[in-house]
């Protein structure tokens, strides 16, 4: 589904991605692990065309590196950024509406369904999204992306800054999404969640992939964990 070969990316002069290789099969949930600052978010951004990528990124066989981000999104990629860019002056409902790419086609989810699934959001449906709490914002961002009916969704650090209870909720939500048949690339730090949902994990270190395997295999690799994940 998504095939990344020899991906490089730069911020000005600093070389952040250094030949990332990765692939995601249809329906798969992949967790991308790694310490802070190794370039996981940058990988996500490079896929979405927000950071100029060098190398090859193929989505369902088509080269997407270098395309403007709306084209990439229209091909069926969804992105939930780390910065949770909700549109603060608009209501929750309007935010969700903006996630829809094509008003004429109904996707897997409708706005009402979304609100049903997340009573927290439903309560605030007609409030400006800017006043939501951090957790509510995170949910909103994810729901909004789902409205666009993506085939593959990239979620960057969904649980950051969330209350423990909500973290569990978000985890469940992601599992739910996966069940609907959407492939997921999950950028996470909380191992507990990542390992629970993922079909496979990639570990990133200094701009390249240093390990890949199933959660079960990974559980046995304390060395990797020590070297690349723990601080």
């Amino acid at each position: 589904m998504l095939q990344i070969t020899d991906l490089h990316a730069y911020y000005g002069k600093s070389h952040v991605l250094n030949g990332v290789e990765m692939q995601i099969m249809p329906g798969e949930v992949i967790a991308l692990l790694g310490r802070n600052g190794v370039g996981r978010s940058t990988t996500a951004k490079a896929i979405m065309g927000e950071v100029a990528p060098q190398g090859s990124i193929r989505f369902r066989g088509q080269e997407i590196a270098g395309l403007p981000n709306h084209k990439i999104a229209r091909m069926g990629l969804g992105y939930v950024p780390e910065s949770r860019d909700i549109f603060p002056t608009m209501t929750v409902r309007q935010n969700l509406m903006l996630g829809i790419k094509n008003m004429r086609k109904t996707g897997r989810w409708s706005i009402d369904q979304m609100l049903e699934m997340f009573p927290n959001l439903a309560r605030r449906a007609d409030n400006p999204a800017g006043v939501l709490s951090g957790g509510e914002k995170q949910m909103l961002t994810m729901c909004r992306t789902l409205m666009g009916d993506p085939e593959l969704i990239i979620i960057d650090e969904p649980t950051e800054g969330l209350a423990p209870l909500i973290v569990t909720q978000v985890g469940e939500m992601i599992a739910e999404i996966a069940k609907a048949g959407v492939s997921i690339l999950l950028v996470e730090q909380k191992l507990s969640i990542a390992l629970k949902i993922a079909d496979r994990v990639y570990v990133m270190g200094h701009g390249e992939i240093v390990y890949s395997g199933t959660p079960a295999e990974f559980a046995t690799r304390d060395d990797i964990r020590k070297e690349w994940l723990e601080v």
Partner: protein
Amino acid sequence: METLVFALLNGVIYGLLLFMLSSGLTLIFSMMGVLNFAHASFYMLGAYLAFTIMEGTSFWIALFLAPVLVGLVGMVVERYGLRRVHAQGHVAELLFTFGLAYLIDEVVKIFWGRTAVNYRVPELLDFPLFTLYGAQYPAYRIFILFVAAFMLVALWYLLKRTRAGLIIQAALTHPHMVGSLGHNVPLIFMSVFGVGCALAGLAGVIGGNYFVTDPAMAVQMGPIVFVVVVVGGLGSLEGAFVAAMLIGLLQTSAISINASLADIFGFLGLGPHTEVGEITIASMAPMLPFLLLVLILMIRPRGLMGEREV
């Protein structure tokens, strides 16, 4: 009575013209956050283009073609100018349009000269519609009324087709995010700017022969358009309409008042032959809009009907 009727009639027409001129600015501002200083220059461009087109063909073709051309110019400006500056924030955008106004003014002078061109009301509409208290009322003014009404309705529709508006607003602050959701942000910006400019162009087509088409018309209209937009509440179409009417009526009725300040404030001991006392209401007409602007911004910074602060 007579004075009142005239003041009303003229005020409404002037107000409608102001509204036509400011609606495009309102559109651009509310959707893109760009305070387009060159807006009045697009208005001028519309008038001049209409003049040239009309020479070759007819007014009716100009009425359609000139705004379209101005809109295209606007899109080019957005594509190759504003878009570049956008990343540097609103002040840079504002300054860009500020400089653009200079440029358009000069280019107009090159092509059409420094003096007024003879852009006239089309024959078809050039007749007195009725006579009122001994003064004729030109049919063209009623035409203005209709065009303005049409514009109001059309814009209303556009703005209330909310999704397009929403996307643009969101793209204003989070262009990347909106792009990631699959919307073609640059195209939308370009179109909005184009439409806004085309509206200014339309106002130019209509206003250019109602007033005079000369290279100074942009400079003269520029500030007042801002007053309308700000007083009405930035981004509020209804507000712009109300403000345009208010200012139109205020200015025209002030002119028809013969009283001086001494006549009004005489009871406070203001003598008729003091400098302040001698000032007539009529002579204050041009500054009234700005007085209104400052007062409104102080008392109610979001304008008459704006939803957010300027």
